[in-house]
């Protein structure tokens, strides 16, 4: 990876400039290296969480015991959820891709607080070790939601796991703080707020939620620890507490957290679609503002997780209406992305295939949200597989697909290498097919009444469960192929040009991979991030087309 891609000896990449050896990574303050360390970490966590998912699906191949006991199953599905949410999805786009790309997109040398940045990474690693330690140290069977009073009473290392999530929260808060400061203060000269790439808008909105909501999670988890360790009755009715109170606290963070997960995914799509359509983004302001609107309304809908919990009907009504309100900005984005492709000049390289998959899957995820937002229908569907399918369409079909779109989009920039395009398209297709086979069936299961978090099930549900499990194998195969060609590209991949996709945002104005301080000269911001509609120069490996393009206008 550390080869000089340019051969002339004039541009050195950050891999060389930052020094060699393990210590050059451990002590680095470079946002690009930190981003890559996050990337490796979250990908490992995705592999671990994915393995758990495959085990869960395999167990459900037949009713009763297939490969594990009920206790083991409960631990495995809890770990799947907790790892995927706290250790993968939340940090995946902002901390991994955001760290690498945000300063480049803003045309700056680094984030505002590089030391804070590496500190956040080590907090993340600490939290991850504690959480994974909890797995080894006895397992946790509460589900990732840690609902009381079950979690106050069950055996296993709940406290350790919860403490891990508590620590991880600080990493999230500090990264958010860093990105907010960076976006406010370090934009390249000429990059006004309204000329900022939409990825930055998305990350900015995400950071706001991270800073404002995560402390509430910390408080909640702390209270749970206090209850378990000292026996103070906060949530356990047996000790005078209120079981449902925990749910309010928990979802007050965890619903905004859903937007911490999806907004960065949407932000990636807003970059990929214009680039591969060679077309100005449709409705820049609407997309940017809808991110902020989602971030704000996202704070006011937590109660829609609790329509059958015994909360007052009036509260449920308000939460239902607000929930429908949040559908509107999401819908606006989808329409805008589609309209961007109108009269474009579209090429279907892998990142674009992921973006199109996102459109398809996220639309289903969003529309099925309408069922769950409607109070009377929610009563039937909540806590069934319908909900499982819905949030996988949004979280995996949305965020995770967008994340892999982003990984493929910026892979040449990050590594200086191109991956095998044919294999990449094959993997994308397998992921898309596998995903739909796995989760479309689960909508049907849910409507029919199959409850979630069930180790065993009635025989009438078996066929659909089997189809879903086979889908998970296709999905797994797709990811396996992805790992193989991405790793292979580091050794045998063709050298990446500075601007392989013909994009106009600033990261394409510097070499792949970029030098330590990102840009050899001040990046050109005269041309906006989506000012397509002027002749596009042909791709030539090793030249700085973006810069040439910019100066020619």
């Amino acid at each position: 990876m550390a080869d000089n891609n340019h051969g002339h000896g004039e541009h050195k990449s950050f891999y060389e400039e930052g020094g060699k050896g393990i210590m050059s990574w451990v002590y680095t303050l470079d946002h690009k290296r930190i981003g890559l360390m996050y990337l490796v970490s979250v990908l490992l966590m995705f592999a671990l969480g994915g393995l758990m998912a495959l085990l869960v699906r395999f167990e459900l191949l037949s009713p009763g015991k297939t490969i594990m006991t009920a206790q083991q199953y409960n631990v495995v599905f809890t770990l799947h959820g907790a790892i995927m949410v706290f250790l993968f999805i939340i940090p995946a786009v902002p901390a991994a891709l955001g760290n690498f790309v945000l300063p480049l997109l803003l045309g700056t040398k680094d984030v505002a607080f590089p030391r804070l940045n590496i500190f956040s990474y080590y907090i993340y690693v600490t939290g991850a070790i504690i959480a994974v330690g909890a797995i080894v140290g006895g397992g946790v069977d509460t589900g990732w939601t840690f609902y009381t009073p079950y979690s106050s009473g069950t055996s296993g290392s709940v406290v350790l796991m919860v403490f891990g999530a508590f620590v991880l929260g600080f990493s999230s808060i500090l990264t958010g703080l860093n990105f907010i400061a960076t976006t406010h203060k370090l934009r390249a000269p000429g990059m006004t707020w309204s000329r900022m790439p939409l990825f930055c808008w998305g990350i900015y909105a995400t950071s706001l939620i991270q800073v404002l909501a995560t402390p509430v999670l910390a408080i909640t988890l702390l209270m749970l620890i206090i209850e378990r360790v000292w026996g103070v009755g906060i949530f356990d009715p047996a000790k005078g507490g209120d079981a449902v109170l925990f749910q309010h606290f928990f979802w007050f963070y965890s619903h905004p957290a859903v937007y911490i997960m999806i907004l960065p995914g949407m932000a990636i799509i807003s970059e990929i679609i214009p680039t591969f359509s060679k077309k100005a983004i449709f409705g820049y302001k609407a997309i940017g503002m809808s991110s902020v609107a989602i971030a704000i309304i996202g704070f006011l809908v937590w109660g829609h997780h609790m329509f059958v919990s015994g909360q007052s009907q009036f509260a449920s009504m308000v939460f239902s209406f607000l929930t429908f309100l949040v559908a509107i900005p999401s819908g606006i984005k989808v329409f805008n992305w589609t309209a961007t492709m109108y009269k474009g000049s579209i090429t279907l390289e892998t990142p674009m295939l992921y973006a199109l998959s996102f459109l398809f899957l996220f639309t289903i995820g969003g529309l099925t949200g309408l069922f769950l937002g409607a109070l009377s229908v929610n009563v039937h569907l909540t806590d069934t597989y319908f909900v499982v399918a819905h949030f996988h369409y949004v979280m995996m079909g949305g965020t995770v697909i967008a994340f892999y779109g982003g990984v493929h989009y910026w892979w040449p920039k990050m590594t200086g290498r191109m991956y095998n395009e044919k294999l990449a398209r094959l993997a994308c297709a397998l992921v898309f097919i596998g995903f739909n086979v796995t989760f479309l069936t689960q909508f049907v299961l849910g409507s029919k009444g199959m409850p979630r978090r069930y180790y065993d099930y009635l025989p009438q549900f078996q066929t659909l469960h089997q189809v879903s499990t086979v889908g998970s194998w296709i999905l797994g195969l797709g990811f396996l192929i992805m790992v193989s060609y991405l790793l292979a590209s580091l050794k045998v991949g063709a050298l990446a040009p500075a601007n392989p996709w013909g994009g106009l945002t600033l990261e394409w104005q510097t070499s792949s991979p970029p030098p330590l301080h990102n840009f050899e000269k001040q990046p050109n911001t005269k041309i906006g991030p989506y000012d397509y509609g002027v002749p596009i120069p042909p791709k030539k490996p090793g030249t700085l087309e973006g810069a040439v393009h910019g100066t020619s206008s």
Partner: protein
Amino acid sequence: MNILLQWAPFMPTAASHNAPNVDNLYGFIFWLSVVFFILVIGPGAWFVYKYRLKKGEEHQPTPRITHHLGLELTWSVIPLLLCVVIAVWGFWDFMALGVAPADTEDIFVTGYKWGWRFEHRDGTKELNELHLPEGKKVKLVMTGEDVIHSFFVPDFRVKADLPPGRYTSLWFEPIGVGEHQVFCTEYCGDGHSGMLAKIIVMPKDKYAEWLRVGTPLGPGETLEDRGKKLYSDKGCLTCHSVDGSRLTGPSFKGIFGNPQPLADGASVNVDENFIRESILNPQAKVAQGYSPIMPSYQGSLKEMDLNALTAYIKSLK
């Protein structure tokens, strides 16, 4: 595909007054979603097909269309209005579901790890089975004993959580007679997926007879068969195995006729009277090495049920 001919695809049998209302809205959202899916993905797919760069072509300048107020208002306002319709509609039915009429038959429900206890007004208790007369409005007043459980009857489209320390309620009016599955839908530990119950809606005269004697033996059914059925229906299987493996309570295999050490150090011979006492008053003699957590089945088993269970345990050599 007959699914495409249904208003509310994939929904289970509609067997309560409330179910058709839920299905109407479900169907409305379903078909509206299909239309919107086509409205979004259709043009998207068409654009990709029509405007893709063909082999050998160079990129041509694209028109720089940045926004279109009319279009943007259209796709903001119309979905907003439709969302308001759905929200009001959902709320309307939800309120009807939440406010029980005055003339209901009230039944107390307790969810515990891992089973359901039902208490009728006349004192009859049932475990994991709820018998109801046809044509009667029923209100369930529910609470959780240990952790949160959730009572879900897909055929009735009703569900409510049972948090410990407070009551929640739901009501329904079953249509016709028949059996309906009950699930626990709030994760509650190892026995969560086995925390099932049946609601059995019977004709009025059959119900009166059931109240008196319990369910009579079917043709060809032996007392042991009935015991085996009760063993699973009443949830004995959650804690007692029949293959000798250790669960929360002692296994039934080979237990009859042999001495059983007790928690207080004494020992007792397992006979009919010990089994009867252990079912009705489980705390009286607790087997050594096991926690005294079994609930009493007093009132929830008719005389014949006790005989049947004893016969079944006897048969497990």
